[in-house]
């Protein structure tokens, strides 16, 4: 049961770029080795921290989007906790959120189709990007 997670972590600002890349590579290895999949890696760059973290004022933010198991996430977090350059991390579970967003978008797509029919005559109905349902086609034909 793969769940979608977003792992954001902060690396110390005084760490060289190549070391950061090495760190990210090793984390990705952990994920793929444990049966997960890395969806994307984003480097958000150096940012000023909102408060002092381990006596640092800014840090390098990195975001990993992962498909993984719960136990794999525990392992990943353990590694982040232990690794010296990482000063903070947060893991957020995103699969329920994605499901909800998909549902909302689906509802919105159907709503658009339904409202497009009576408002517009044939031309606008054809211009609707969503694939026309059989019901929509029959009603436009009846009104035309």
């Amino acid at each position, binding site marked *: 049961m793969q769940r979608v997670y977003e792992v954001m972590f902060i690396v110390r600002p005084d760490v060289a770029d190549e070391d950061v890349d090495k760190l990210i590579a090793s984390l990705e290895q952990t994920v793929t080795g444990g049966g997960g999949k890395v969806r994307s890696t984003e480097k958000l760059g150096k940012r000023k921290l909102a408060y002092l973290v381990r006596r640092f004022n800014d840090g390098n933010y990195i*975001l990993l989007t992962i498909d993984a198991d719960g136990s794999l996430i525990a392992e990943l977090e353990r590694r982040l906790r232990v690794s010296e350059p990482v000063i903070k991390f947060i893991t957020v579970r995103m699969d329920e959120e994605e499901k909800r967003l998909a549902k909302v978008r689906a509802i919105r797509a159907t709503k658009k189709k339904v409202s497009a029919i009576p408002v517009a005559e044939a031309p606008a109905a054809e211009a609707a990007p969503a694939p026309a349902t059989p019901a929509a086609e029959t009603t436009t034909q009846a009104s035309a």
Partner: protein
Amino acid sequence: MADETTTPANPRPEAPAGRPAGPGGGGRGPGGPGGPGGRKFFRRKKVCKFCTEKIDAISYRDVRLLQGFVAERGKIVPRRLTGVCTTHQRRLTKAIKQARNIALLPFAARF
């Protein structure tokens, strides 16, 4: 309402629709738009920004959006001031707390 079930010989001459001096502000009326907040007149109806603009996902990552709902000292602004609806306020709070944890927003600012 606990108040209304007191005895008819009510010692306190409090009008039923009186000014709720305490935390009455919002939520008394049946889903009133933000509530009078101590006055008899309605303030102009505030609408939920997320509902009107149809913003679905409130992520802890978009700091600019979240900063609009955080006061100068870093405290989360109550929804009776911003006009946000309950569901979105809950999601917003969660996102702000996540952002605070990852040092994108301060816990307490402007010492």
